[in-house]
């Protein structure tokens, strides 16, 4: 594991002019120094949390699946940084980045991975099912594309209640061919629901590339539904914010849905179980890491702006590592749920017996 945030990337002259444009976009120009540092810090915190959970998984502290967000940090951080009080987020199972980006405390996240009762889902959900309703974060979902109709539903609820908010419904490039996703697109476009469908295109569904999965372009399918769409890179949080801002405003203010495809990359396999040796070359991974690592990209941008210096970068990194270690210590020290806990949190009525109206047996052991 790398001890430094990333190896030094060579700045590309043509890219940096474009990147300055993104930095000057109104949604970014208004960011304070502290806010910029916070964006950077959140990306680093996600990176270190993911690396620490990988080590915990390898030490057999975590069971089941672990889908790491390493390499994609700019997408969740940028998108979630623009949430207003009536905006809502839902995503698939690569959800640790979004969870941290909306502000969840990493101790209950790690405890959830460890299956402890102090986990954010009391150990009942695991890696794929982080939720924080009070932060307008609705999971964390395991079935590919299954969360997308739910996202359309969040938008429906926002509109039904007369709120000026937007739902961001995230999915991967592998989800776009699920029937339920098309149904959700149609409902959103037909009824003008304020949902921005965000396709985090990291190039692969597990091991099957986009070229081998999808006919045509991904976000462009919106044309078929007369829905707006956008396409951008997800390595620079400024760019993601600049592009998403337009679509979020259209959703909040005019209730217009959209599909935004954000090109990103994951360094690690689909999940920890993926040996990652059948579908892409090590060169490809290295090339991305060298030239497009989002933490490195943003670090350089902020250094050029005079916002970050080496000392601050080092401090942020140390703090992120310490935070991840503390989260693991908290998880380790926490108890597991009991067998009696298994049948709690299944039915609202069973959990609220004073308000239960039904009779009969709810469980059949």
């Amino acid at each position, binding site marked *: 594991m790398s001890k430094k945030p990333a190896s030094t990337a060579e700045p590309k002259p043509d890219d940096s002019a474009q990147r300055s444009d993104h930095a000057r976009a109104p949604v970014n120009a208004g960011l304070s120094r502290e806010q910029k540092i916070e964006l950077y810090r959140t990306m680093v915190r996600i990176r270190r949390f993911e690396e620490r959970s990988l080590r915990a998984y390898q030490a057999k502290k975590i069971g089941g699946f672990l889908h790491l967000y390493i390499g994609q940090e700019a997408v969740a951080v940028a998108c979630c940084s623009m949430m207003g009080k009536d905006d809502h987020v839902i995503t698939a199972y690569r959800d640790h980045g979004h969870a941290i980006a909306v502000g969840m405390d990493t101790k209950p996240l790690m405890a959830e991975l460890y299956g402890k009762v102090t986990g954010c889902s009391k150990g*009942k959900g695991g890696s794929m099912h982080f939720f924080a*309703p009070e932060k307008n974060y609705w999971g*964390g979902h395991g079935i590919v594309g299954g969360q997308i109709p739910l996202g359309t539903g969040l938008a*429906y609820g926002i509109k039904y209640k007369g709120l000026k908010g937007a739902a961001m419904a995230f999915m991967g490039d592998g989800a776009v061919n699920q029937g*339920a996703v098309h149904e959700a697109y149609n409902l959103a476009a037909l009824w003008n629901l304020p949902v921005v469908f965000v396709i985090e295109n990291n190039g692969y569904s597990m091991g099957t590339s986009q070229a081998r999965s999808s006919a045509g372009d991904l976000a462009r399918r919106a044309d078929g539904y007369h829905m707006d769409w956008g396409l951008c890179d997800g390595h620079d949080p400024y760019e993601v914010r600049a592009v998403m801002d337009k679509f979020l405003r259209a959703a909040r203010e005019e209730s217009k849905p959209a599909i935004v495809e954000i090109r990103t990359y994951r360094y690690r396999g689909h999940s920890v179980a993926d040996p990652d040796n059948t579908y892409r070359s090590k060169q490809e991974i290295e090339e991305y890491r060298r030239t497009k690592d989002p933490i490195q990209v943003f670090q350089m941008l902020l250094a050029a702006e005079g916002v970050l210096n080496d000392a601050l970068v080092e401090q942020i990194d140390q703090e992120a590592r310490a935070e991840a270690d503390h989260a693991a210590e908290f998880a380790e020290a926490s108890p597991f749920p009991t067998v009696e806990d298994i049948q709690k949190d299944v039915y609202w009525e069973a959990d609220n017996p004073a308000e239960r*109206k039904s*009779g009969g047996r709810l469980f059949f052991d």
Partner: protein
Amino acid sequence: MPVITYREAIRHALAEELERDPNVVVMGEEVAQFNGAYKVTEGLLAKFGPQRIVDTPISEAGFIGMGVGASMLGVRPVMELMFWSFYSVAFDQILNNAANIRFMSGGLINCPIVIRGPANGGTNVGATHSLTPENVLANTPGVKVVVPATPYDAKGLLKSAIRDNDPVMFLENTILYGDKGEVPDGEYTIPLGQADVKRAGKDLTIVTYGRCVLHSLVAAELLEKEHDVSAEVVDLRTIRPLDIATVLASVAKTHRVLIVEEQKPFASVGSQLAFMIQKEAFDELDAPIHRLATIDAPAIYSPPVETEQLPNPQRVLKAALELLA
């Protein structure tokens, strides 16, 4: 007391709950402008408007999932499946999402949805339109399953279902929609998980639900008139939560049980009932538990043959006599 149809009873329940709670929204295919494929929602669009009564495109996975998502924010959607047979298109949204979100979030969320529609054979609509999935639904912790047989039960149970904070699956029957029954004018609800003894008797217990209740009542009349047998008919009304206590009390009285269900036999609702009865009332039984189910094959089209594939009063009578032999 007013006499109304099962269809009207459901409509009145919907109207009353729409009136009572602004979060309630009725949605489904043809529910608004068409007045409902089976006219259940007739007149509701005119009364409540298009924000509350919503026509959906044909996309069950999409609109059921959408309803589940909206329910997380406090909307209370009552979603119609034109046929419960179409649930399989939305299976993931119902049984992976609606049923599990509360658990997977450690209790942070609940999904107060109702999915309602007809689940029945007997109308010659063929194998893919005749499913009765109450067993599949009831097998899933996290959902509730209601199957009313009469207008009175339908109205009271639907009102309770809409007010329930858990996902409730409400299974009606197209053949029952025209049935008439006494339904009080005033406000009333029937709690879920409460069975109803529709006919008292002492010689055998017929445990049943849905349209089979009516078949069983006809058979019980014949048993009394032609065979001097007194049959008790227990209508479960709700499958999950299950009022097994009422069933067991009946078994303790009669000592013989016939389960009648419009279900294909393997892992049906009756299979679970039989296990529970023999486990908890073994010493009360004077005979093995018998079960009359749908003949185990896809639903046949040919009209007179379909009648024989499903439970019907003659088949119930025959099964009861076999039990008593």
